[in-house]
């Protein structure tokens, strides 16, 4: 009996020793949350007038999407779609759902249902999609939790003759026909860095609160932000990136820890998700470090102030832009997720109707007009939108 315990304790000691040995090497790695893909930073603001390379001028890569096998011809006929976002229960995907419903109503011959796990979990998402392949639908709209892991189930959908269009978060290109790209990564990166520099100056220091280091969108934005910052604002100091899942209390705690760790050396925080940005703003507000602090008795001095710039939905940011903590946040970077969901439904309808096929360079998407094809099999929604105190109250999602 005692021998068993001894073995158990030894095992514990070995585990702890293992930690002690691995930790120093892990600490040397840079946990910046960026991916390793090639980057394509846009022109710096000063050089913008000198002539910007527009996407159309760049050479257009070949169509690299997949195609469904023996899809029934339903041109002009009613179709049933299922929408599987990363998760349900956050304002962002509630907005894409709203856009999809608007498009369905306008078109009149499309039915869309949104169904997804309540946590951003790839295994659960695959199970949901699998379920709808078995039930049989005409098309699947998705926002992937993991670009690689979701590919097999989407390929199976294509093989079953189901049309597949992604939005918000891509899969491997061959696993879907088209992907509606809400904004090119370098466009968002430029808007984020430019907005931050406007507040903290070209020699400030900032940290990042992201969801996880492997979330494709966030990793891509961070990589492009690094590239753009290196090119245009080499004096900016990049402190670190912390993970906070998609959990607002954890995001708040992580942002608070950053504020405590760097003290006056921290000038700004980027929120990389619609959850992290308001939570970071809350952390700054509760620490009394808003640049313009409306809370009596909690006003931070301008030198200590921490700016917050990030991706978020307008409703979540109103308290910090125009509400109780007005002025705490000056710029919120995003596209319009209602338009994103709306465009995804129009793209799928156009594919079913045979009006949008591989090789086309644009597609008509209702009130959004003509959308350009980029990167082979992606449809670009447009440049990012910056919500400020002047315009944010005009949005409600």
């Amino acid at each position: 009996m005692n021998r068993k315990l001894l073995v158990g304790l030894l095992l514990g000691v070995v585990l702890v020793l293992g930690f002690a040995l691995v930790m120093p090497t892990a600490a040397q790695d840079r946990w910046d949350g960026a991916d390793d893909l090639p980057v394509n930073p846009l022109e710096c603001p000063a050089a913008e007038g000198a002539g910007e390379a527009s996407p159309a001028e760049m050479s257009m890569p070949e169509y690299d999407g997949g195609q469904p096998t023996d899809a029934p011809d339903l041109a002009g006929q009613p179709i049933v779609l299922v929408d599987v976002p990363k998760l349900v229960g956050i304002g962002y995907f509630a907005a894409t759902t709203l856009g999809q419903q608007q498009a369905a109503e306008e078109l009149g011959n499309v039915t869309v249902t949104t169904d997804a796990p309540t946590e951003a979990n790839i295994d659960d998402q695959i199970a949901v999609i699998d379920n709808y392949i078995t039930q049989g639908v005409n098309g699947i709209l998705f926002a992937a939790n993991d670009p690689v892991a979701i590919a097999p189930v989407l390929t199976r959908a294509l093989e079953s003759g189901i049309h597949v269009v992604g939005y918000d978060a891509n899969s491997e290109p061959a696993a879907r026909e088209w992907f509606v790209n809400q904004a090119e990564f370098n466009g968002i990166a430029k808007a984020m860095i430019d907005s931050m520099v406007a507040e903290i100056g070209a020699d400030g220091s900032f940290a990042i609160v992201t969801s996880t280091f492997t979330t494709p969108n966030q990793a891509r934005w961070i990589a492009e932000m690094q590239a753009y910052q290196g090119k245009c604002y080499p004096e900016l100091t990049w402190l670190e990136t912390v993970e906070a899942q998609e959990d607002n209390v954890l995001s708040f705690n992580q942002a608070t820890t950053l504020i405590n760790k760097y003290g006056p050396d921290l000038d700004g925080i980027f929120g990389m998700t619609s959850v992290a940005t308001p939570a970071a703003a809350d952390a700054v507000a509760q620490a009394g470090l808003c640049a313009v602090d409306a809370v009596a008795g909690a006003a931070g001095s301008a030198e200590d102030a921490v700016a917050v710039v990030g991706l978020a939905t307008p409703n979540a940011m109103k308290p910090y832009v125009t509400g109780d903590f007005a002025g705490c946040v000056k710029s919120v970077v995003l596209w319009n997720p209602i338009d994103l969901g709306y465009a995804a439904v129009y793209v799928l309808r156009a594919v079913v109707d045979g009006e949008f096929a591989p090789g086309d360079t644009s597609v008509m998407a209702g009130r959004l007009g003509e959308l350009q094809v980029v990167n082979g099999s992606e449809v670009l929604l447009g440049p990012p939108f910056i919500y400020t105190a002047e315009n944010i109250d005009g949005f409600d999602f």
Partner: protein
Amino acid sequence: MTATASPVTRPPVQARSGGFLSRALSFLFTQEVILFLVLVVLIVLVGSANPRYVAERNFINILNGNAYIAVAAIGMSMVIISRNIDISIGSLIGVLGTLSGTIAINGYPIWASWLVPIVAGALVGAVIGFLVAYLRIPAIVVTLGLLSILKGGLITITGGAWITDLPSDYFLAQMKSPAFSFLGLNVPEIPSPILLMIILTILAAIWMRYSTTGRAIYAVGGNAEAARLSGISEKRIIMTVFIINGITAGIAAVLWATQLSIIQSTVPAGLELQIITSAVVGGVSILGGIGTTVGAMLAAILLSAINSALVFINISPYWFRAVVGVLILVTVLADRLRRQRNRASERG
């Protein structure tokens, strides 16, 4: 029932006969003391690497960060000590927090938005307790079912819309006690979650150690048959622990909801695991009959301190999960070791 009925009077920490030294040793080896020492070592180590870690502000944030988890762990500890489990608690907190916010934005008085979730939590606890105690359905099955009902129901009803525009006097968790001086020390403003955590934990610990009902929880979890023979109503005790668990879940939900200016209207991912982990790492035996709420609180604080430390010493947050895993394994091993020593000493 007399106070000398043997299983009922068994205190949480096995008081064994023996000299002063052996008693002092067994006190030193209690989970509470070990956790406290680990916490001190962690704070000293990280604090010497980065002094800002031990600055007053970060210290308060560490205590504050997991306070709602520690409050929920009070009820959870009782449930586990009675040899039951509640895996629906994360979902329940999500639902009760959303309920609280919904009441607040619909113009009802603020006290109602704080009180109704606690009452609702007690009702849900009573339902679980009834199913477990009287219909004899295992707690894990009951709460697994409830988890799905609450999670699905919340999304269906709210449609995932966040709650914003909360009234400015709603934020209970952001309120602070006034600063005061104590024995020449300047005690800073203490955020209400920390105050609630400490007061509720100590009250619960005293109640569990000295009241008849509190001791009966240990008896039911430690040896249900002996407890029954000594006249304890197992059914009543199980009802009681689940109702208390519902109440502490309600308080935790109010703290969770009033911490930030937005309520996410979702079930916080993995919250039930954090609460159960706090209880287990705090020395509450998953086999029932052993543990204290003080241990669970210390464990919740330790987890918060580790999370903060990982940021301060630049280690990937992925390590957090690994560290927590090691903590759970070490605790369960220590629990086994202690049980065997006790058994050996009872024999000897």
